[in-house]
């Protein structure tokens, strides 16, 4: 197990380094220098050259890459000239809010999808299963902004229960307490994951139900309730860990869409405005942060699964 984890860790480090090189080169090829944003449209080429020279943007790409990575390791994520703030300051202002939105959505998605998938597998082909399967199919094919628009229409405009805009408060405690404004963004993000998770849980539970140890448990007269809670739930929910790790890219994308739709001041919205303003230090840092989060998330999921599942742990 240890050698597997070490190998897994080494590959993850290689992938993180590779991803940072790739994203840096890609962004560098697209936006070689922020000089135009800093000096304005009327700047002469000579001025731009001088600015590039004094700020190190005319160095070879390799030098610039190592300078950037060196900065990252010291907590310097670059400088956003359009916001006139360091990227680190912009991120640290918003990261808690985005983490809250994504985190609580993920938790709610799992809380809904786990029992739903198990219920569907146990009562397979019943009316409830068919309704849930159809709903999952529709949600799975639905862009999250369309789901968000429907929720706004129904629950904020036709029946004004919730607010159609997320809260604008900068205090995390206000954000957490403001269910009136936060319910719709959270559920927009959660319901999209519920579709994928419950479909997966259903098929995983059906696989487990066909296993011999379930037959043994039933044959020895264990009450069905205990068969489900002791044997089915524990075995079927293990692979969910991997699935959550794999769903991180979708969660990041969903976060971007949801924050834009509900005007929630998080990292996704910051990235969206950086696209509009061609603020590439923010684009670079956020894309890189997203990639690292995906790699680390998958690594943590694999470690958790290895620790939790004796079949892997002892193999």
């Amino acid at each position, binding site marked *: 197990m240890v050698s597997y984890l070490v190998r897994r860790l080494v*590959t993850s480090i*290689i*992938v*993180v380094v*590779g*991803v940072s090189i*790739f*994203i840096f080169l*890609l*962004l560098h090829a*697209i*936006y070689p220098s922020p000089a135009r944003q800093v000096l304005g449209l009327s700047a002469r080429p000579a001025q731009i050259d001088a600015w590039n020279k004094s700020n190190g943007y005319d160095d070879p790409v390799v030098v610039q890459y190592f300078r950037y990575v060196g900065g990252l390791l010291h907590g310097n994520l670059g400088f956003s000239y359009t916001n006139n703030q360091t990227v680190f300051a912009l991120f640290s202002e918003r990261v808690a809010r985005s983490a809250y939105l994504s985190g609580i959505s993920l938790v709610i998605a799992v809380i809904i999808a786990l029992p739903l998938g198990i219920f569907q597998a146990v009562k397979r082909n019943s009316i409830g299963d068919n309704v849930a399967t159809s709903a999952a*199919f*529709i949600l*799975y*094919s*639905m*862009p999250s*902004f*369309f789901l968000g*628009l*429907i929720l*706004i*229409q129904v629950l904020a*405009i036709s029946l004004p229960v919730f607010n*159609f805009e997320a809260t604008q408060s900068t205090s995390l405690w206000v954000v957490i307490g403001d269910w009136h404004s936060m319910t719709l963004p959270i559920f927009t993000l959660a319901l999209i994951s519920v579709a994928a998770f419950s479909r997966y849980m259903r098929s995983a539970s059906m696989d487990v139900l066909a296993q011999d140890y379930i037959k043994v448990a039933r044959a020895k007269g264990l009450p069905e309730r205990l068969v489900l809670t002791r044997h089915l739930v524990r075995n079927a929910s293990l692979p969910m860990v991997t699935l959550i790790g794999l769903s991180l*890219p979708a969660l*990041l*994308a969903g976060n*971007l*869409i949801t924050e*834009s*739709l509900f005007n929630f001041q998080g990292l996704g919205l910051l*990235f*969206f405005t950086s*696209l*509009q303003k*061609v603020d590439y230090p923010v*684009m670079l840092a*956020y*894309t890189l942060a*997203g*990639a690292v989060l*995906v*790699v680390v998330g998958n690594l943590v999921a694999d470690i958790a699964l290895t620790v939790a599942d004796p079949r892997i742990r002892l193999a």
Partner: protein
Amino acid sequence: MTDISGGAFEMQRMHDGGEVGAIQSGWRLALREFSSNRLAVIGFAILIFFVLFSFVGPLIYHTNQLDTSLTQVNLAPSGAHLFGTDTNGFDELGRVMKGGQAALEIGFFAAFVAIVIGTLWGAASGLAGGIVDSAMMRVVDIFLSVPFLFVVLILAVKFGATVLSLSLVIGGFAWQVPARLVRGEVLTLRERDFVLAARTAGAGSWRLISRHLIPNALGVVIVNVTFQVADAILAVSYVGFLGFGLHFPNVDWGDQLSDGSQYLQDGYWWLIYPVGACIVLTVMALNFIGDALRDAMDVRLRRR
């Protein structure tokens, strides 16, 4: 049950020493399995409907999608405009058809790009083996870790969104899954006798890949194509919704929904629900087809 008797009949003929009947190929079996799946047939019908709706529809239902008419803005559905009109006075039904063209074109072209890159990459990696294989698979891992939508948006902003550019960008960042699938197939295929035979006969790597490995790994690729198209259509809708989509006179479904969402409080439902339903139905149809193809290709699930 007719197929069983048909098979028995063919066997009978073979025993009689008469003409040897063709044994049904795996593809034929898969096709039969596919067409007996109700959801697959529904999905296929919906997909055909949207292809006809988007490409043939405008030939029947003529609308002016070039000149704005400010006297005809945001009209509710009526006999003259079946889906009403949008904020610029364009007929919404005609506009949805135009958006459908973009969605389907980008969806299929992006899937094509992804499948071509992925298949070649996976086959080359699996055939090479050893350290080259590990290196090529780490590249796949790197591409899998890049947040897809972010990069697509960054490139769309820089290079401007056209049907071609969006297809290339989306396809260029979506080939990792087919690459892994094909590599997995190739790893088992390359140990098989017919590959050894081809090698012995002097076949080079390219010939092995193009004539022996890819045709035999095609099953997993075909299953993946439909999911690729579905994902690409969703990706385009996201790009369009965020405002970085196709430029006038072209339009995509996400862009239309974004325009419609400005009027949510005015109750202009026709600007939102028809387009949204089109996205959902098209993507759902493709997912139905993909699921059915996967089941049909999976020998273990096949009814005998």
